[in-house]
């Protein structure tokens, strides 16, 4: 036999800290592909509705750009700040890492607030017409993701509080996972922004 692998290493790859973060990240990435397909379904529905179902007379479906552009900026910046948090933990700088995490979560929550403001100032409601419903379904589902992502960021922030905690320079799977998820949510937002607001 050429290579032999200790039993322990092949053993259940999660649970212990020294598991296989690569497998978990791989699993998460696969899950995000699945998640992206849900959005793809919503977008496909939206585009089809737009293409074949004209808005009935008198129905209102108008979107303003300023707030969503602000939202886009918020999310893009938050992606960068999360990235900085990751860099900081790799340099074993817990304080800086946690600061960046907090900023990220703050930006995420600012996004949510701004999204709420947009919801309440829109000239249409959830059940007004087909486009409106689809708009709320897609943005709402995305907002759910942002909420989850912000919560995850805060959890990582908590986990990174001490140098011997769950998030360390050597093993920071929670941070890596939350970061990938956050970038994913931002990426989806960009696509969503193009499809819902620009097209």
């Amino acid at each position: 036999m050429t290579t032999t692998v200790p039993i322990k290493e092949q053993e259940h790859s999660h649970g212990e800290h020294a598991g296989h973060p690569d497998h978990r990240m791989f699993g998460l990435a696969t899950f995000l592909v699945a998640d992206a397909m849900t959005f793809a379904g919503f977008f496909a529905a939206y585009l089809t509705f737009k293409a074949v179902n004209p808005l009935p007379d008198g129905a209102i479906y108008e979107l303003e750009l300023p707030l969503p552009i602000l939202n886009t900026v918020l999310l893009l910046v938050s992606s960068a700040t999360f990235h900085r948090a990751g860099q900081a933990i790799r340099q074993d700088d817990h304080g800086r890492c946690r600061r960046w995490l907090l900023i990220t979560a703050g930006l995420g929550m600012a996004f949510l607030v701004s999204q709420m403001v947009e919801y309440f100032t829109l000239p249409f409601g959830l059940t007004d017409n087909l486009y409106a419903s689809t708009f709320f379904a897609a943005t709402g589902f995305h907002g759910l993701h942002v909420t989850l992502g912000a919560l995850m960021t805060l959890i990582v922030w908590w986990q990174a509080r001490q140098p011997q905690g769950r998030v360390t320079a050597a093993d920071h799977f929670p941070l890596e996972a939350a970061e990938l998820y956050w970038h994913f949510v931002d990426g989806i937002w960009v696509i969503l922004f193009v499809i819902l607001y620009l097209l």
Partner: protein
Amino acid sequence: MTISLPPETSSPPRLQPSGWLRYFSFSVDHKVIGLQYLVCGFVFYLIGGALAGAIRTELTSPVSDFMARDVYNQVLTLHGTVMIFLWIVPVVNGAFGNYLIPFYVGARDMAFPRLNAVAFWLIPPAGLMLITSYFLTGAAQSGWTAYPPLSITTPATGQIIWILSVLLLGGSSIFGGINFIATILKLRRPGLKLMQLPMYCWAMLGTSILVVLSTPVLAGTLVLLSFDIVAHTGFFNPTLGGNVVVYQHLFWFYSHPAVYIMVLPAFGLVSEILPVHARKPLFGYVTMVYSIMAIVVLGLIVWAHHMFTSGTPPWMRLFFTIATAFIAVPTGIKFFNWLATLWGGRISLNSAMLFSCGFIVNFVLGGITGVALAQVPFDIHVHDTYFVVAHFHYIVFGGSVFVIFASVYHWYPKFTGRMLNEDLGRLHCALTFIGFNLCFGPQHWLGLNGMPRRVAEYDPQFTLINQISSVGALLMAISTLPFLWNVIHSALNGPVAGDNPWKALTPEWLTSSPPPVENWIGEAPLVEEPYGYGVPPGELDLSAASGRDLWSSGK
């Protein structure tokens, strides 16, 4: 280097119940989870079968006399949903996938054992919820397709419960799919190359890709549908300006791949069973792999063949006809390869082999009617009739269910350490095969001649054929009795199987029966040629061979 512990203390520090109780626990052992899937799925199969019995009883007479019409639709919906989401999908994927894949990649468990257990434990509550909805509020009654606006206008509680349980089952299936992909791609034993994997791994890889890509679309769609029901949005509600055909597109974007999710693993299982019992290598390994991948790709772009009468534009019909018909090519390749695997073998005509061959016969017929259905003009006549019912039962029952039985006969010795009774097995196979064909064969004619599907009452000219069909269903019901007796009796009293009763080469047989928790005591074997059976042709015993043996091998 390898940590070798004495067998007694080798169990990792997990607080898992042992003995039979572990099958009712949140076990993270892939073998336990596999059997949990199998037994749980079989229980739902019996429930779904009872529902089918109710349907066939109603249809012995042309009038609606056995149950109320709305109850009939509930029974029909439950039958379809239970059979697809609680029997075939969990068993061909979850049960055999969990049991076999870690063995095949040389691992001790799946990549994410806890996620695996979660995926399984989503199933019983979802199934129970679905079934109790019938007793509490009345189940959904819009068919397993849940087309709006019917699903929006029928009683809401049942439909919402249906949506919830399908969402849970879809989630379970996605978790399973992620786990399979990670296990196959990431957990392979060092030295084991992809192209050395047993075919079932490829089938599960393809299936899991389909699961991950298509199930979320169904989930999203059902969420929208539930908004239409509870929040009065109008996605699919035409009175509010919605578009019902968009639902159909989204639904079939999942549900056509779903038919491959139900049948690709079965293809993989057959590819494991045939070589062992024919004592020959699997013919055309490489083309088999490519055809699985071709099926995966094509399977994603053929969904609208379920919508040829939904007012789809002509170009769409043309595209989906051609794409659909072309799926027959990779599918055909697999069948020819299986036939070539059998040719020149030393075939044991045991239950596993006979069920596999029954599968080939039935699936070929289902595939032929499938290619016919892909032709728009042909489909326009028979769409939504008993012809389609016959077609997909030849595929899912004649295909997947036959393979599940073949697999139970094949792997039972591994699961339990005991052999099943072969005579009872052959009886089971004969009864199932006859009953199945008697039940579904005549339905082709019914559909061609004017009987639509999903009806509780029908034109009296179809009475006799429907009664024949019901007799076939009764035979199928009876056929499960020898099976049940066999499985239960053999578990206690069957002859001891030994580690490798079939003298098979794939890694699950290279350990004890049933296997230890860590699959192999000591290191996992490296199986580079999982199908290395057979005598090299040069050393053929000429007294036992004829010219045709040689002709068969090529030119």
